[in-house]
């Protein structure tokens, strides 16, 4: 080695070079040789998140509506919210993966749903409880059944707060779905785990950029959607967030 002629790996091994190579190569975005590209992983990520958010809403909104009809409902809602905050979601996901569910999308979606329920539940519960008692009394006076009052009066009036809950859950689901890569359910987290596994930091940093940008974009988009819904369905005055 003369020193004036650098070996190929000496030229091309800087992290910055790896990063720019990864960012500009077609295969990292569109995939190659059986490796999924960013766009494929993005679709997986969207699929996991939408599925988890849909299931969350299907469980949490009726559950919150039912809990408002129960004297101890508030206690259940606060304990669930406080309890979920201290449970490590990675642990639960890994446990589901080695446990009865097995590795794959199911374990990831179940874990995501468990942790997305509290924000939707709390906000829906508060939204329904904040509905003016005179309004519901008027609805009952008009001859509505309890179910009709819930469907036609209380839930529509709670929409602004439900939107806040869904927004918080969506941002959380999108961020946490990254961890789902650890249990083999794909998504954008694959870029980071794959790159880290191969010690290929070009892919790691490329993945970090893609993940951070999409996460911030989802946050901004959901805020917009929430504001649009609030503007459309009126604003209830509630503390927090």
């Amino acid at each position: 080695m003369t020193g004036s002629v650098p070996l190929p790996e000496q030229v091309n091994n800087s992290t910055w070079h790896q990063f720019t190579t990864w960012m500009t190569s077609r295969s990292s975005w569109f995939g190659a040789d059986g490796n999924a590209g960013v766009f494929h992983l993005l679709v997986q990520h969207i699929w996991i998140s939408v599925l988890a958010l849909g299931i969350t809403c299907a469980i949490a909104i009726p559950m919150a509506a039912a809990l408002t009809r129960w004297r101890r409902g508030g206690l259940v809602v606060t304990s669930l919210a406080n309890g979920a905050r201290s449970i490590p979601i990675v642990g639960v996901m890994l446990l589901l993966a080695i446990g009865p569910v097995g590795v794959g999308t199911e374990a990831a979606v179940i874990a995501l749903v468990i942790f997305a329920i509290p924000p939707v539940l709390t906000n829906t519960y508060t939204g329904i409880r904040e509905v003016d008692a005179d309004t519901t009394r008027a609805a009952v006076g008009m001859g509505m059944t309890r179910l009709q009052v819930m469907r036609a009066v209380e839930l529509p009036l709670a929409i602004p707060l439900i939107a806040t809950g869904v927004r918080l859950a969506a941002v959380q689901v999108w961020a946490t779905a990254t961890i789902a890569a650890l249990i083999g359910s794909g998504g954008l987290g694959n870029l980071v785990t794959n790159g880290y596994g191969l010690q290929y930091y070009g892919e790691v940093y490329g993945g970090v950029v893609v993940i951070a940008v999409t996460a911030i974009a989802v946050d901004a988009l959901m805020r917009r959607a929430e504001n649009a819904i609030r503007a459309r369905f009126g604003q209830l005055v509630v503390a927090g967030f």
Partner: protein
Amino acid sequence: MRLPGDFHFHKMGDPWLSWHYITANSHAILSATRTHVTLTLEAVALGLVVAMPMAALARQQPWLRSLVLNLCTAIYAVPSIAFIVALVNIFELSSLTVVIPLASYSLVILVRNILTGLDEVDGEAVAAARGMGMSDRRIFLKVRLPIAVPTIIAGIRLAVVSTIELVVIGGYVGQGGYGEEIFQGFAANSHTQLTTYIVLTVLLALVADAVLLVAQRLLTPWKRGVAA
């Protein structure tokens, strides 16, 4: 698709929880607890050190305030695993690899609570202090800060509890604490190890919350009897 570790299903003699496991591994549990607590405290302490000047800056101008708060929210939106792995190449085995991301996440809670706490200070109390001839510096230290303390400590409580949960992700890059045991349990396909350390994480969060609640009561004797 690459999976971390090998998977063996249908393993026998691996209960969800076992007292024997806890007594047999008490040494490992204690050392993991020590690391977990240290990482949490380092992260929240660093978060506080950064949050204070940020809050002070945010109080200067309304646009700075929204800039600071939006910055904190944006950082918070970045998934932790991406943030942590991004730092592995820079700080390698140093605990900064997890401490810096977790401190950054705690900002969203700490900055907001410091601001809320300082906003709560009554204008008349400040005017009275000024009338007594206090300097701005003394007013801040003797009037504003003590009145803001309950809200700030409530923020620290929230930050500590959520950091305890987030430290677990550090286990992915081998950063000690309960997380490392959880990832090892996953690789070894051990239900016992996973559930034990998940339960320990929850217990640690509950204990930390209770301890900080007591600290909050002791530090603000004038608030005693008032709901937190």
